[in-house]
């Protein structure tokens, strides 16, 4: 009898969560597209035709779809790099910098161990990417763990340092004979494998697998439980003997490592070389997406798909209907705005 009364509320909580999540995302997407449609009408374009263009150019062809996947790959990883520390109430704004340092470490590996076969070189580069990101994250994490400086501000400020270091390395040592701002193409063994003749690379699998592992880890593991306890009430967790400082260090550095891996994926899989200022804000986009969906892995996947779809579609829209490309930023901003307004739906529906 007691068994039953215990289990019934758990089921309904899960069901309610699924229902509210679906309703939430559905409303968010519909509302942002409606708003953008009004904007298109206002500037004299046919919104229906524009949306048709966006969707046929992205979802309508295998190539378009693959490009959406390509641009969501790094964001999956940086989103996770932010989501993991957010579970113990740490705010990692430094994914961008960690991504740069991770990419730099991986590039060093690619240039140094050129002779190795792919099955050795790729894992080495991955480890180096993880290590670079973790080291860069260690600075704010350590300062936070000794109670000196808030991790938010230090990780944010380190973002502007990291690209300078990469600039120094590339301009100073690594540039190819022809260029000053990029390395030579990596050898084939240093390239992540791609699928089906598209630009989709193994990094996508890293992202999806890590997100699922993260979800399972938080839900089922001993450390996930302790992290949830810290996230809910750090002081009580400390009194219960959970080592708060260790968690701050380990979790934040792990987040950094994952962002570093994103850097490795982009250098090795996307560009196949390293260039200065190679990130187009992947770290920041990951931060935005992770916080918008509250660090929820499924949400990160859904949201980064939507954002990537808008971006890719925007490129095409500019060509086909002469809409200025910057307008796609407006659609993106509207989407983010609507997602932020989410609490009002949620409350209204309860």
């Amino acid at each position, binding site marked *: 009898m007691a068994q039953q*009364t215990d289990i019934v509320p758990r089921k309904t909580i899960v069901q309610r969560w699924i229902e509210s999540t679906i309703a939430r995302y559905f409303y968010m997407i519909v509302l942002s597209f409606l708003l953008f449609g009004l904007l298109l009408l206002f500037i004299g374009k046919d919104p229906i035709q524009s949306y048709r263009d966006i969707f046929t150019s992205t979802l309508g062809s295998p190539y378009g779809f693959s490009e959406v996947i390509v641009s969501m790959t790094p964001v999956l990883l940086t989103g996770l790099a932010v989501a993991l520390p957010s579970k113990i109430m740490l705010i990692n704004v430094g994914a961008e910098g960690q991504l740069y340092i991770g990419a730099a470490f991986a590039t060093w590996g690619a240039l140094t161990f050129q002779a190795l076969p792919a099955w050795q070189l790729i894992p080495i580069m991955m480890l180096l990417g993880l290590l670079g990101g973790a080291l860069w994250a260690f600075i704010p994490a350590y300062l936070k763990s000794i109670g000196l400086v808030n991790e938010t501000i230090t990780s944010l400020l380190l973002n502007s340092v990291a690209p300078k270091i990469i600039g120094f390395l590339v301009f100073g040592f690594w540039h190819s004979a022809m260029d000053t701002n990029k390395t030579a193409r990596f050898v084939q063994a240093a390239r992540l494998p791609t699928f089906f003749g598209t630009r989709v690379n193994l990094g996508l699998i890293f992202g999806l697998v890590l997100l699922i592992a993260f979800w399972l880890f938080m839900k089922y593991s001993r450390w996930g439980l302790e992290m949830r306890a810290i996230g*809910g009430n750090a002081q009580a967790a400390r*009194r219960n003997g959970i080592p708060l400082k260790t968690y701050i260090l380990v979790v934040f550095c792990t987040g950094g490592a994952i962002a570093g891996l994103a850097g490795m994926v982009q250098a090795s899989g996307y560009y196949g070389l390293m260039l200065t200022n190679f990130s187009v804000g992947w770290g920041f986009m990951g931060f935005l997406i992770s916080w918008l969906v509250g660090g929820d892995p499924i949400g990160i996947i859904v949201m980064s798909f939507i954002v990537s779809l808008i971006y890719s579609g925007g490129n095409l829209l500019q060509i086909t209907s002469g809409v200025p490309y910057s307008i796609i930023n407006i659609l993106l901003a509207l989407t983010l705005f609507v997602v932020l307004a989410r609490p009002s739906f949620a409350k209204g529906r309860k």
Partner: protein
Amino acid sequence: METLVAHQSSKNTKPPLLSMVGITKSFPGVVANDSINLDIYASEIHALLGENGAGKSTLVKILYGFYRSDKGSIVMNGNEIQIRTPSDARQAKIGLVFQDFSLIPTFTVAENIALFLTNLKAILNLHSIENQIIEISKRYTLDVDPHKLVSQLSLGEQQKVEILKLLLSNARILILDEPTRVLAPHEVNALFMVLENLKHDGYAVILITHKLQEVTGFADRVTVLRKGKVSGTLIRSELSEEKLIQLMFAKKLISPIRQQLLRPASEKFPVMELRSIETHGEGSSIHLKGIDLDIFPGEIVGVAGVSGNGQKELGEVVLGMERCAHGEKLLFGKDATHWSIGKVRKNRVAYIPENPLQMAVTGWLPVVQNMALTRTWLYARWWGFRLDLNKMLNDARRAFERLGFEVPLLFVPAMSLSGGTLQRMTIARELSFDPRLVIASYLTRGLDVQSTLAAHKALLDTREAGAGILLISEDLEELFSLSDRLIVCFEGQIVGRFKPEETNPIEVGHLMTGSKVAYGSTD
């Protein structure tokens, strides 16, 4: 003792300025005010005396419109009035000085006061306000420079600004909530000079305090609250510390329910030793000074003291939450001064904090997971990547059942439990792993009679099993009936050490309230 109650009506001829009649207010799990009657007269300082949690603050918050009473009425000059919001209270010329002031640091004194006035014009005439401030501050020796920024003022000066604020807004009844808490000794006297002057000009002053000297020195009338009820009202001529302590604390002693120790404590090694411990707490928290304390196996050491005198810090030092700035701590014979809390906990130290929701549990995690939180490694399977939910459930149920507590729903978030259930949950969790040392703060807060008995029995069983217990409480009945030894904390120091049978609540009450510092029998 009952003769102490309700003297005033016969001795007072003038009608009260304000009466609170039959005020009752309950919060989930506790009746904070239970049909309280209070008469406030003009030209009097009326002290509200009582321990923390006796209901003083609730009563005053009802008067100032923060809370609404469940029952009862407020009568002013013979007419019943409704006070629903603080602005109603101000309309009725009632003013309150908060414990934590409500001034804006970057504003000047005059600007802060102007902000508070209800009849403020669209265009500020700060000059006239400044003149009023100077005039009033001269009359009552509340000297404050109106041009100064509040951030440049000492706490004592800020309090003056708070009082000036009320005077300028024409309040006639001034409520001061523990005003001397933030003041240095010489400032305390100055404050009471001001209050005396205000009294002579016809103001009514309500003074909330738990310090006896203030009451005996300055109050014209004292109402003592205990556990939400008025335990007595005295006028100045009847005042004595003796009587007040009797009213504040329990009147009779409950005979100890414990059995004698099996062996004399001194034959064993202590489970915990503190050697001249000092702490430097952050902010306003109290600092411990020169704490020496041993706890032996199979012994309950009771810590008496009015809340905020270092008992919480004492418990936190033992746990390791508060760092020792000086001195050393030994647990089970080993130097534990720099142990992590995790290590302390692994050595089977149980901690039952004063506020479980804040200090013991993660509110939105289900009860069963909160129960497992202190010892997650017990439930780890697959090298920690899975938790054994069935074992967690069984252990949680057993933890409740062995103490005779009802098992609550285990899958609801801990914060949805009532205060008493949450307390039972914490006790069940902490006593489930056969602790060797127990730190228990306010063990029975929020518990009903039956659960209180069960908790006491559980504590005594733990003691019989050989654990050392540090029992922090304000309930002297509880301390006297459970403790093998008793210490008294006042302002971060241990000011008394007794065996319960060698002392009495009056003496302990004296020490708790700092009415005199003396040392009883040391051991």
